[in-house]
């Protein structure tokens, strides 16, 4: 029984030029204590997906379809008040490190107490105690609760917002690029922190990142997104060892791998298509080195090629050959865009 189940979720933006299909039918499940990584380039709809799940969306965004079930409640059908009941208490979020996610004119303590008193129903003393404990838990001096956000360094700020995410003992944590913009050493510390906390507290997590090596370290499952759709999903081991989709192969080339630190990095040429009237066929086809004529005409469905491992690509056989070709730089330079 899944804790969170997302079925065919759509989030579109109303723009001047037309409707942008930013998230175009996404499905995945998340069990209690499990973690899933949403991976893809920026603009592929990862962040919009999680915003769609907790329904904190931009004014011009709307959901024409889909279902998000959280312990048998359909989130899309809840009222704003019911949503506010659920937010942070059940689903909390660790935002991007680079973003100013704390109100700059109040102390961090103020923001801890606010959410704990208002939504957690704790007394002021209990809340203060808990906040101090959480700060210790993420390795910060409880004295720093009195700081304003600008007084923290990047890594400390990220620890503080992790502590804040844990304030109400949520069941699910959404981590949106939690280590982007931090330097590499701090990145590793924070990721380890998140991993340990998750194990200790039995938290389920959705991790959003453009860096496939980050999810490799932290997540049980991976869903690879491209242009508003999931193109491949499965367990982390399946995907990292046995990628089925050329885009996933490309992503693996683009980031350093812990097992092969000397590996040459290859980037995927070109840019994702416009999501307003996206082209027919597979959305990745124009950038895909293995694209055939049919790829530009018909959109492949997600198919389960091995137990729990799905891919939306016409290639079902001879994947080993494809994978070894995908490791060569020349392959990716051949595409004409």
């Amino acid at each position, binding site marked *: 029984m899944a804790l969170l189940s997302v079925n065919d979720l759509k989030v579109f933006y109303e723009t001047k030029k037309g409707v942008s299909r930013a998230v175009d039918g996404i499905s995945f499940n998340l069990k209690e204590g499990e973690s899933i990584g949403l991976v893809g380039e920026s603009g592929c709809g990862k962040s919009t997906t999680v915003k769609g799940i907790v329904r904190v969306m931009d004014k011009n965004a709307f959901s024409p379809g889909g279902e998000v079930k959280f312990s048998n409640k359909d989130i899309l059908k809840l009222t704003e008040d019911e949503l506010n009941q659920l937010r942070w208490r059940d689903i909390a979020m660790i935002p991007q490190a680079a973003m100013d996610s704390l*109100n700059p004119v109040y102390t961090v303590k103020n923001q801890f107490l606010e959410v704990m008193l208002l939504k957690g129903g704790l007394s002021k003393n209990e809340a203060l105690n808990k906040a101090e404990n959480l700060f210790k838990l993420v390795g910060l001096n409880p004295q720093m609760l009195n700081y304003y956000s600008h007084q923290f360094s990047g890594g400390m700020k990220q620890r503080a917002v992790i502590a804040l995410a844990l304030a109400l003992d949520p069941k699910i944590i959404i981590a949106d690029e939690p280590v982007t913009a931090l330097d590499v050493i701090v990145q590793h510390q924070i990721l380890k922190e998140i991993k340990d906390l998750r194990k200790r507290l039995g938290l389920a997590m959705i991790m959003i990142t453009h860096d496939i090596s980050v999810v490799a370290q932290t997540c049980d499952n991976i869903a690879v997104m491209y242009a508003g759709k999931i193109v491949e999903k499965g367990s982390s081991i399946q995907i990292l060892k046995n990628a089925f989709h050329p885009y996933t192969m490309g992503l693996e080339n683009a980031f350093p791998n812990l097992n092969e630190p000397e590996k040459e990095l290859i980037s995927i040429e070109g840019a994702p298509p416009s999501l307003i009237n996206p082209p027919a066929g597979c959305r990745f086809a124009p950038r895909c080195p293995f694209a055939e004529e049919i790829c530009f005409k018909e959109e492949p469905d997600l198919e389960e090629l091995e137990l729990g491992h799905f891919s939306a690509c016409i290639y079902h056989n001879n994947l080993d050959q494809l994978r070894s070709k995908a490791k060569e730089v020349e392959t990716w330079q051949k595409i004409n865009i």
Partner: protein
Amino acid sequence: MQNKWKVIAERFGQMLITLWIIATILFFIFRLMPGNPLVAYIDPTFTEEQQQALMQQFGLDKPLHVQYFVFLKNLVQGELGDSFFFRDSVTNVIAKVLPNTLYLMIFALIIAYTIGILGGILLAWHRGEKIETLGIILTLFTRAAPQFWVGMILLAVFSFQFNIFPSGGASAAGQVFNSEFDKLTSISFYYHLFLPALTLSIYLLGLPLLLMRSNMLDIMNEAYVDMAKMRGLGKFRVMFKYAARNAFLPVVTAMAVGVGYAMGGNVIIETVFSWPGLGRLLVKAVSTSDYPLAQGAFILIAAVMVFMNFMADIIYSLLDPRVTLESRR
């Protein structure tokens, strides 16, 4: 903290220099003006000797630079000379009307900034909807309409046509207030204050409203506003504590500009409503060529403006923990 005080002191010094330069400019404008400055004072029946005696009395027989230093020395002591028209010291004349101007200004500012800030929040929250367009057009109307004309229309409608409010002055005919306290606790005073304060606040409304709106639009793109929504804190808490509280800071600074506008706007509105204040006094002084009085009134208005600018800097740095005074320079 030590450093903060140092910067405040430095700012204060800059303020004094600005004031000194403004006073100097003013001094030379008045002295280099064509015509005899005593023209308003001098009766055609005055003899040559009497005129000379008068020149001496006002120190106008001395060379310009001597006059200038006497002027500065007196200014520092708060001594602004004698009014030709009232035959009284300028300080006394101004002190009598200054409270009225301050009441008018403070009430108008409170109304304008309350409505302006709330209106700005509302318009930002309804970005892209019809209510926003309507609000902006209405606000532009208030900015474009001459404030004395708005006052005239309010007078014609509410005072002359429907007889709801008095047509001018600060008190009913024959009514005398024994003290400022008496005045402030008298209903009649507020009854007289209403229309001029309304006119002035209509004039002042646009700045805080438009500024608040555009700041809100900027702030609402900030991650911490989205994060507050994620925390399920409720619409109003997000709107006020997260978005508005941060958008509010530049509006505080603009309040100083607002005081400047109010002081300038006062001059005309007080005249329309015969409000016995500093602005009306200035107009009267100019039209009767009473230059010591005009000079005193003008310096005071400028001083209030410059001082409010200084205050705005200080208040801003107190409200926003990120801002140190140095970084704003």
